[in-house]
C-alpha cells in the first residue's frame, strides 16, 4: 500500500516537499539564538569563579572609595557645616544650605552621601557572598573578606554619624524582594561596625608590597576601630567605650609600624604616599585619575592651577586665627598669597575680603605637579598615626578622669612637630579642650571636624560662633543628623524621616 501512495504523489505535493526541505534549511541556518550573551563583559552568572575574579571584586571596593573621596561627599559637610569653611556664596544652593542649615531632604549633597555609601556597602556584600565559594588560597581569600569587612565598616561609620539609625543591609542584592529595609538602631549598626573591624583586623596583613600597597591592613582596621569606639563613647563620661578606645589605640601604637613624619608638610607629599604615618588613605594618580583638591579649592578664578580655581569653599577666620604663633602647620595648610602667572604681581589673600578670588584657601592637599583640572594626585588621608595619638590621648583623659602622663606624651608629639611648646598640668576639661583644638588644626580639610563637633556635643556652639559672611545658620539640636534623602523615603515605605526635617 505504501508504495502505491508514493507512486501517486502528484506534482504540487512534490513542490511542497521541496519547499518544506528549503524551509527546514532556512530555519536551521537563520534561526537566531535568543539567549545572547553580552559580548563586551561577563555577567554575574559567569563571573566570580576564579581567584582573579575575587581579586577584581575586591579591588572594585577601592574604586568606590576613590569616587567618594575625590570630590565633596564627605569633606564638604565636615568643612562647611562646621566652623572651618565658607562655601562659594553664589555657588551651588545645596552646598550653601549645608552651611546655613537651610537643610531639606532634597539636598543633593545629602543624597550623594547616602547613595555612595550604600553602593560601596553593596560591593562589600557581593565580595562577602561570592568569594567564600571560590576555590582559592585560603589566606588570600581571608584577606579579601577582611578588606570587604573593613570597607563596609568604613561606609556604615559614615552613615551612622551622618544619619543615626540607618537600614543595615548585610546581604548581596539579588532581587528586589525585601528591598524596603527599615532603619536599624544606631547602636546595632555600631555593633556591626565593631564586629566587621574586629574580623578584618584578624584577617588583614600588616603590610603589602608593589601594586597592592594601599589596600586595607590590620593597622587600618584597628585604627578605625579605635576611632569608632571613641565616637561611640560620645560625650558620656561613664561610657565603657573610652577605655576600649584607649586600649585599641594602644594596640596600634604597640604595633610599632607607624610613626610621625618629622615635618607636617611631609605628610601630604606625593613621594610619601602610604608612608609611615598613613594607616589608610585613598590614592589618586596625577592627571590620569585624580581628585579635585587643587583646582577645586584654589582662589576662585586664579590661574595658578589647571583650569582656573573654583574656590568651592574658603577658610573661615575662626579656623585661620586659631593657630598659635609659630605653628608650622599653618603655612602648609593654607595658601595666603601667590604670584600671578600673568602679571607677576604678588596677590595677597585674606579670610575677610568678600571677593572669593582673594580668599585664603585650603592648600595642603594641592598637587602643583598636575596639569589637568580636577585631576590632582595627592591622597585623601583617611586615617593617620597622628589621629591615633590624639584618640589615645583623648580616650585616656576620659577613661581616667583626667589626662595621664601617656596622654600628655601623645598630644605633645604632635605639638612638638608643629613647633609648639608642650602642654602640661591641665585638668580633664582643659585637656579635652586642648585635644579638640589640636584635632581641628591637625585635621582640617580631612573630613573630621563636623564629626568631632557632633560627637562631643559642641556643634551648635561652634556653628553659632563662626558667623562670618552673614551665615545666620538656623541650626537646632536636631541638625546633629542630616535628613534622610527624600528620594529614598519615596522609594522605601519602611523608612522614616529624622526628627525636625
Amino acid at each position: 500500500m505504501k508504495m502505491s501512495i508514493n507512486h501517486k504523489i502528484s506534482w504540487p505535493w512534490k513542490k511542497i516537499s521541496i519547499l518544506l526541505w528549503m524551509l527546514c534549511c532556512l530555519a536551521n541556518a537563520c534561526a537566531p539564538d535568543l539567549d545572547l550573551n553580552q559580548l563586551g563583559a561577563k555577567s554575574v552568572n559567569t563571573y566570580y569563579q576564579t581567584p582573579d575574579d575575587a581579586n577584581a571584586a575586591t579591588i572594585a571596593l577601592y574604586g568606590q572609595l576613590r569616587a567618594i573621596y575625590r570630590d565633596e561627599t564627605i569633606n564638604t559637610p565636615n568643612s562647611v557645616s562646621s566652623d572651618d569653611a565658607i562655601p562659594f556664596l553664589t555657588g551651588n544652593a545645596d552646598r550653601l544650605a549645608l552651611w546655613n542649615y537651610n537643610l531639606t531632604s532634597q539636598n543633593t549633597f545629602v543624597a550623594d552621601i547616602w547613595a555612595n555609601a550604600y553602593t560601596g556597602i553593596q560591593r562589600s556584600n557581593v565580595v562577602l557572598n561570592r568569594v567564600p565559594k571560590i576555590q582559592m588560597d585560603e589566606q588570600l581569600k581571608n584577606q579579601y573578606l577582611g578588606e570587604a569587612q573593613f570597607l563596609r565598616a568604613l561606609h556604615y561609620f559614615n552613615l551612622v554619624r551622618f544619619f543615626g539609625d540607618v537600614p543595615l543591609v548585610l546581604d548581596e542584592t539579588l532581587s528586589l524582594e525585601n528591598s524596603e529595609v527599615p532603619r536599624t538602631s544606631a547602636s546595632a549598626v555600631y555593633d556591626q561596625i565593631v564586629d566587621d573591624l574586629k574580623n578584618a583586623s584578624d584577617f588583614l596583613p600588616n603590610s603589602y608590597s608593589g601594586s597592592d600597597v594601599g589596600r586595607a591592613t590590620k593597622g587600618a582596621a584597628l585604627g578605625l576601630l579605635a576611632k569608632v569606639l571613641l565616637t561611640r563613647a560620645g560625650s558620656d563620661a561613664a561610657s565603657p567605650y573610652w577605655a576600649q578606645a584607649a586600649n585599641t589605640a594602644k594596640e596600634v601604637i604597640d604595633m610599632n609600624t607607624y610613626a610621625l613624619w618629622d615635618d607636617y608638610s611631609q605628610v601630604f607629599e606625593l613621594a610619601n604616599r602610604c608612608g609611615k604615618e598613613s594607616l589608610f588613605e585613598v590614592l589618586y594618580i596625577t592627571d590620569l585619575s585624580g581628585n579635585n583638591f587643587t583646582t577645586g579649592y584654589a582662589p576662585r578664578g586664579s590661574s595658578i592651577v589647571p583650569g582656573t580655581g573654583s574656590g568651592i569653599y574658603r577658610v573661615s577666620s575662626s579656623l585661620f586665627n586659631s593657630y598659635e604663633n609659630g605653628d608650622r602647620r599653618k603655612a602648609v595648610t593654607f595658601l595666603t598669597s601667590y604670584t600671578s602667572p600673568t602679571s607677576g604681581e604678588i596677590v595677597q589673600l585674606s579670610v575677610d575680603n568678600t571677593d572669593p578670588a582673594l580668599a585664603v584657601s585650603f592648600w595642603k592637599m594641592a598637587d602643583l605637579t598636575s596639569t589637568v583640572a580636577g585631576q590632582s594626585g595627592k591622597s585623601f588621608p583617611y586615617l593617620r598615626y597622628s589621629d591615633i595619638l590624639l584618640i589615645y590621648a583623648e580616650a585616656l583623659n576620659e577613661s581616667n578622669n583626667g589626662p595621664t602622663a601617656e596622654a600628655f606624651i601623645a598630644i605633645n608629639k604632635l605639638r612638638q612637630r608643629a613647633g609648639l611648646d608642650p602642654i602640661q598640668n591641665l585638668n580633664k576639661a582643659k585637656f579635652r579642650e586642648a585635644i579638640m583644638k589640636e584635632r581641628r588644626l591637625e585635621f582640617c580639610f580631612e573630613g573630621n571636624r563636623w564629626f568631632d563637633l557632633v560627637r562631643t556635643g559642641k556643634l551648635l556652639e561652634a556653628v553659632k560662633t563662626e558667623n562670618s559672611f552673614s551665615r545666620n545658620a538656623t541650626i537646632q539640636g536636631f541638625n546633629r543628623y542630616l535628613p534622610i534623602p527624600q528620594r529614598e523615603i519615596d522609594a522605601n515605605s519602611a523608612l522614616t524621616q529624622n526628627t525636625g526635617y
Partner: protein
Amino acid sequence: MDNPLGIAKEVTDIYRVIRLLSNTYAEIKITDDLLFRTTFGANLINTKSNYYASRLISLGANTNGSASVSSTQSVDWLNENTLTYKHLFSEKHDLTALLGYTTQSSHSESVGASAINFNDDYALYNNLGGGATLQTPSSGAVDWALISFLARVNYSYDSRYLLTLTARSDGSSRFGPNNKYGFFPSGAFAWRISNEPFFHKNSWISDAKLRISYGLTGNQSISDYAYLSTIAQSTAILGGSNPIIRLGGVPAIISNLDLGWESNRQLDVGTDVSLLNNYLRLTIDYYSKITSNLLFSVNVPQTTGYSSSLRNIGKIKNSGFELTLGTTIGDKNKLQWSGDFNIAFNTNKVLRLDGRSEYLTGSGVGHLQVSNTVQLKVGEPLGNFYGREFDGIFQSEEEVAASSQPNAQPGDIRYKDLDGNNAINDNDRNIIGNGYPDFFGGFNNTFRYKNFDFNIFMQGSYGNDILNFGRFDLYNLNGNNNQSVDVLKRWTVTNPSNEIPRANASGGQRILSNFQVENGSYLRFKNISFGYEFPKSFISKIQGRSIRVYVAAQNMFTITSYKGYDPEVSRFGTTSISQGMDYGGYPASKTILVGLNIGL
C-alpha cells in the same frame, strides 16, 4: 546653559550615515491558490560622528578644546517565510490564509576616541593625536534577535463584510530567559454598509464603512541585555607612592530574569463616511487601550546598592476619540477650498503599579539635579508633575514670621503648607500640572484659484502644562548666567511683586513648584505657502511637464503663553511617563523656503 549662539558657532558636530539596503525574495507557486514566499533582507549601516568644541565656549574652554570621533557599523538582517492560501469561493467568499515564520537579527559594533588639550582650534576633530591628553578609547558590540511565528486569516464576503484574524508569537533576545516569548492575537471586522443592496447608490451618502478591531500587541523597545546584570569595570588606584590603575569588577544592575513583553490590549471602533459625492469626508474613531506589564525603570531604594531597575510593572489605560473631517468645495477655475480638520481627545489613567499605590519618578536634569518630579498614582492620570504649591511672595518680615518658613526673607517664594503642620517640607507636595493635553489637532487649508494655490496648516494643543526646568536657571539671579527679562519685575522693597521672587545671590534652592510649571497650550502656523503653477500652454513650449514656483514659511507664528523656546519641544522625548518637560530644548526652526519644481 551655554550661550545658544556660542553652541551654534563654536561646536562642530557632524554625523554621517551610509546605509545599504538589499532585499531578495523567491516565490514558489505550489498550486494556483498556494504561494510560498521567502525574503531575505539585509541592512548595512555605517555611521560616523565628528565633534569639536572650541576653546571659545565653556564646552571646550576648560579642556583647551575637545575633539571626538566615533563610528558604528551594524548589520541587520530579516528573513521572512510565508505560505499564503488565497481562494475566491462561489465568487463571493474571498479567503486568504497565511502562515509565517520570520527571524530577524542585528549585530552592531562601535568604536570611539577623543582627545583634549589642543594647541589651537585649527584641526578640529581631524587630528586627535594633536591633543596633549588622550581620553580612554571605547568600543562595544551588541547583538539582538527576534523570532516570530504568525498565522493570519482574511475573509471577505461580497466586499461587504471583512474579517481579519491574526495570531502571532514573538520571541525577543531582549527579555529574560523566563519570558522571552509573547503571544499576541487580534481580530478586526469591517462592514462596508454602502455595498449593501439596501443602500441606494444615489443616496447623499456616497460611502460608509464601520470598523471594529480588538487585539494585543507587544512592545520590546528597551535596550539589549537589559535583564542581565553584567560586570562593569570600576577604576581603583593602588600602589602607594607609585600608584597604578587597577580594574575591579562590579555587577552593573540587579538582574531581572522575569523581564518580559509589555502588551497593549486595544479596542477600536470607527466609521468612515463620505457624504454628498465625496464633498465631505468624515472619520470618527473611539479607542480604548490597556497597557499591561509596562516596561519601566523603577527607582529602587539605594540601600540595594543600585538606583533603578527595569521592571514590568502596572497597567495603564488610554482611551479617546479621534475625529477627522475633510471637504473640497468649489471649482479650481473659480475658487476651490480643501479643508482637513482633525482633533483628538485622549485620557489616561494608571490602573495598577507594582503593588504600591503611588510613587515618584523622574531623574535629575543636568546640574539642576531636581529629581522625583513626576508622581505615578493608581487612579490618576499619567504625566502629573509633583511639587510644592507656589503661594505668592513674602512681602514683609511680619508675613515671614507668621508663616511656616522661618528661614525665608521678604521677597522669597511662599509655599502652601498643605499638611497644615506649620512646616514646609516635602510633605507639602501636590500635583502641580500635567504634561498631557486635553486635546490636540490640526487644520489644513488649501485654496486654489486658477494657477495659484495657497496653503495654511495650523496645529495646536490645548490644556497641557510644561515643566520648564530652564526657570531654575533663568530666574535665579545668582550672577552666573543669562536671565529672563521677567527678573526686571522681581520683588524689591519698592516693587512688591507677588510673582517673581527677589534677587538672591545664592540663587535660592531648587525646589520644584508651580513657579516652574507653565501653560503649554499653543497654536502654531506650521506651514504657510503660496504657489503658482505655470500654464500648460507655456510649458508645452519648453517641452516640460510642469513648473511650479512657491514660497513657504514654516513655524512662522506660534500663539502661546509658554516662555521657553518652544512649547512643542519636550526634553525627555516621547516616553509616556515624562511628558511635557523642557530644559532649553532646541526649538523648531523658523524656515522660509523659496522653491521651484520642474517636471520634465
